[in-house]
């Protein structure tokens, strides 16, 4: 089983699968509209995503959606469209920190922490493990009754919950 995981054939199959998954990943105008529209807030102050604003008679969302359609039709990239909105409405119009510069810190920090936590834990376990191996093995034969009871209690605690 584990030999199979190491085989080149399996690696090749995984690469093929990923390639097939990525093939044909297209981008329709409706999809772009949804994606960009969900990266913006409504300017009316409701605190909702532009395409989810459900205020009756909202003074901003209909106009902003019209502007979004116009900007997308003009052919600019997602970033260009978002920048246009930032210039017009201010940075708070973006639903996520996407301006670059200090905004990148918002994205990098949790990912860095996540990786550091995983690697740090693996490293700590490795160090503890090597220390545990250096310790003398537990002698069992010839143990006193009290020690045996203690060991039994430990077995019970560690194997039953």
């Amino acid at each position, binding site marked *: 089983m584990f030999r199979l995981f190491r085989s080149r054939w399996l690696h090749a199959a995984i690469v093929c699968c990923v390639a097939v998954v990525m093939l044909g990943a297209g981008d329709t105008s409706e999809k772009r509209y949804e994606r960009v529209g969900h990266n913006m807030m409504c300017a009316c102050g409701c605190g909702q995503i532009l395409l989810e604003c459900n205020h009756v008679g909202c003074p901003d969302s209909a106009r902003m959606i019209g502007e979004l359609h116009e900007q997308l039709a003009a052919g600019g990239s997602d970033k260009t469209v978002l920048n246009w909105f930032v210039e017009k409405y201010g940075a708070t119009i*973006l*639903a996520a920190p996407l301006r670059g510069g200090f905004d990148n810190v918002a994205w990098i920090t949790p990912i860095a922490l996540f990786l550091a936590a995983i690697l740090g834990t693996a490293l700590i376990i490795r160090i503890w493990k090597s220390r545990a191996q250096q310790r003398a093995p537990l002698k069992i034969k010839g143990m006193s009754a009290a020690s045996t009871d203690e060991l039994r209690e430990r077995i019970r605690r560690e194997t039953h919950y």
Partner: protein
Amino acid sequence: MPSHPMPEFGSFSLLLALVLSVYTLFVGAIALARSSAAERIDNASRLGETARRAGIASFIAMSCAAFALVWASFTNDYSVAYVLHHTNRSLNTAYKFSALWSGQEGSLLLWAWLLATYGFVLRMRHRVDVRLSAFASTILAGVQVFFLLLLNFAAPPFSIQPGPTPADGNGLNPLLQYPEMVIHPPMLYLGYVGFAVPFAFALGALMMRYPGEKWIHITRRWTMVTWLFLTCGIFLGAHWAYSVLGWGGYWGWDPVENASLMPWLTGTAFLHSVMMQEKRGMMKNWNVWLIFSTFLLTILGTLLTRSGLVQSVHAFAQSNIGNWFYGFMMITFAVCLFAFFKNRDHLKSENKLESIVSRESSFLFNNLILLVACFTVLWGTLFPVLSEYVTGTKATVNAPYYNRVNVPIGLFLLFLTGVGPLLAWRSTSLRSIRRNFILPGIAFAVTAIVLMIAGVRPWRDGDDMHATIFSLVTFSLAAGVITAITSEFLRGANVVRTQTGKNLFLSTIQLVQKNTRRYGGYLVHFGIVVLFIGIAGGAFNQSHEQEMGFGDSLQLGSYRLVCQSFSQDSNPNYDTEYALLDVYQYGKKITQLAPEHRFYIASQQPSTIVALHSTLQADLYVIYEGKNPDTDRPIIKVFLNPLISWIWIGVLIVIAGTLLGLAPNLARTAFKSPVVIEPPLMEAEVHHV
């Protein structure tokens, strides 16, 4: 000057509760300082007993204050400013009661009353461990003093409205006039406040250098019950948001929502990691700081809701009491830090991790991932403030950020949910890994392939690729984890069946009864998996908006909606506009929906009443958005949200699992006499180990 007997009674009760809590804190602390560790505090010092009784009396005083406010609300006493601002005469009776927690002062009163109630239970059950309970009681009194200072001096709920008493009140926020709002805040507060109890026990155990891990046994039920309340509170809130706010979703990553999620994440981590301390005497430092952090996060949550530090769409009661909370958090943190450094040698681990492939390391990873998730939520919540401080302009951090960052973390947690229970304590052999993981692995792979064949293809045009990939991975992982949990149940049940000759069903019941904690935990995991399946359904949401006159129809997915009529109505509390829509599926009429738009007269605020047709497969979610002023015809927005019901079912399973975990083991009561083990067997067992 007119007299106001009930508000005066309430104010006096609050003041009395403050005096009694101060007495419990200071006299309790003096009694603890005087008593020696070897003596039982109630014997050693009568002073300690008076402190305990004062604590009990403070609960009675707090109950009187809460009663006075509810009474003022029910009797339409608009001389009380709080009642004037949060109720009106035509308000439904249940909402008059819920007005208690609809505003700042009332919410703080509820906080303090629940804390007094928890304190009351703790002080009545002090014989479990008299000295530890005395420590916990004194610490709780400290927290109580803070809230009572707020209630007496910063946000008094019984302030009298200046001038003549108005004939009617301003009414309750329409968003809060919903049945779930009667139980959601108390549930959430029971969770928030409840974490003060394990915090008090942990801090007390650290201060008195409590020998052994008994304090964990004492607090386990407190922590689980608190966690359960918080879970119910969070999901009642999510269900309320889904049913009332009318934007088609249930979680908007609003700072107030985030504030409730953070202590839930650290509380969940604590519930897992205490098992390591219980079993192997490990992670003592970690556990102490986890529960300290959880309590501080509950205070931070209240601060975020109340202070206006961050903007929130549903911070109903913002004010300038933030500085009080900052001060309290700093004092609490300083006390925790001092107690930790003074007694850190007491928290020495008895064992170390021996293998990366073990139950312990899976708990450790689980804890780290939960903390990373908590940090991400906190980071996103506070980033706008940080961004403004650093760059001078505020950034918005909303759903797109949290979804991108937290979804991979959530998937990793889901993976650990399946893997963790399959690993043995201390170390797991390769053979055991192969045996335990082969079936879940196959379930994962088969589900992924079947789903891709069935049409869940991330590469398909028109779909959101990232969302589809994540949902595909979620469904596949869910299949793997469910297989792992089921095989755990079956493995145990088969052993019982072999031993007892009972059928599989009865064997499973006996197995669960024998170890309710373990199998309750598995049930909670199963509930979490079901919940994840429901969340993953969000990748396939559809929506459509249309103006609908008589007889007009709208098609979404397999549903066709036909407008039968639209009209308006009125009652003393609100005016309403609604549409009657017949719903057809595959040409057959299945139901009629009536989405509404209300306008509350007293508060002059609009509100949406969502019409919902819910099935296991999908929710048909219909909103009346208003009328087109040009045509005078209603605008209807329809969402088709797949698998939403699975979220609520998952939560019910989590609740059932937690309740099962709280139930006592029947097996323990069945084997009361000690088992005598012959020496050869004992030796064999030792060699086996």
